[in-house]
């Protein structure tokens, strides 16, 4: 069977979809790294934020191609509206709907982040939490839309990405729990200071 234009579109959509998933995974991991004030080895701190941003814009580019080729492909019927309005696609409404949800959230994330200096910290932060909904929606969309998930490499890739994000998210949550709010910070800093001075008995006075 020759390669038809439909097949080419299908391949393009699938390939860009896979790359987008990997890019989104990297974006989420980098976002968690920024939040935890971590650093990529050998790189300055602003590289983490810069890469997070540039990877997300790159992901947008790949997703744009992914969506356009999927819509243009005559083999499956997916209207333009179905790309942004969830569950309105005649073809696989559930799984494509998840893709539409992911895309909508991504648009919100990107637009608010581009305007972040103007919309204020609290608004930006609240919207940015949606990233934790955007990524799973994208993964589920990928699993449900793929016709050949049982192929080894795609399954392995999906599992790998999922494992990485779950591990990073678990780390993020555990740090948040350990921090237990601003109330603990001065006490923790004081304990650290006093430990550094430990070994010398203080001139103690009992509290009144």
């Amino acid at each position, binding site marked *: 069977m020759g390669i038809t234009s439909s097949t080419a579109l299908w391949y393009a959509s699938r390939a860009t979809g896979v790359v987008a998933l990997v890019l989104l995974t990297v974006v989420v991991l980098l976002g968690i790294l920024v939040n935890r004030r971590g650093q990529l080895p050998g790189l300055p701190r602003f590289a983490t934020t810069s890469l997070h941003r540039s990877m997300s814009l790159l992901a947008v580019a790949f997703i744009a191609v992914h969506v356009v080729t999927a819509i243009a492909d005559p083999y499956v019927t997916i209207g333009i509206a179905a790309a942004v309005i969830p569950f309105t696609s005649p073809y696989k409404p559930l799984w494509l709907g998840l893709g539409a949800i992911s895309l909508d959230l991504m648009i919100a994330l990107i637009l608010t982040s581009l305007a972040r200096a103007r919309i204020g*910290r609290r608004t930006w932060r609240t919207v940015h939490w949606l990233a934790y909904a955007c990524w799973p929606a994208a993964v589920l969309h990928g699993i449900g839309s793929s016709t050949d998930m049982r192929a080894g490499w795609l399954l392995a890739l999906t599992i790998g990405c999922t494992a990485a994000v779950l591990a990073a998210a678990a780390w993020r949550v555990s740090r948040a729990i350990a921090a237990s709010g601003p109330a603990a910070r001065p006490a923790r800093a004081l304990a650290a200071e006093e430990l550094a001075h430990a070994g010398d008995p203080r001139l103690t006075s009992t509290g009144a």
Partner: protein
Amino acid sequence: MADHPARLRVNPIACSGHGVCAELLPELVTLDDWGYPLLAGDGAVPVRLARAARRAVTDCPALALRLTSAAPGSRGNSEEAQRPARAQTGRLGT
């Protein structure tokens, strides 16, 4: 242009010591013992650094950096803006 030059200000509550500002704007921002930003010269931004300053404001992960044209020495507190400009320390409440 404006009477007051552009001035960087740190929101100390939002700031969590990421240190990105110090990397992007080392001429104006250094870090203290605990990784929190110290602004040189009360935060005044020379024109040649204006672009880098804007980038630092946008890139701060905690959105804790601001560019304003407010008077020096005030924390944006109405009381202090109206007081004669002597450093006040140590007051609580009203």
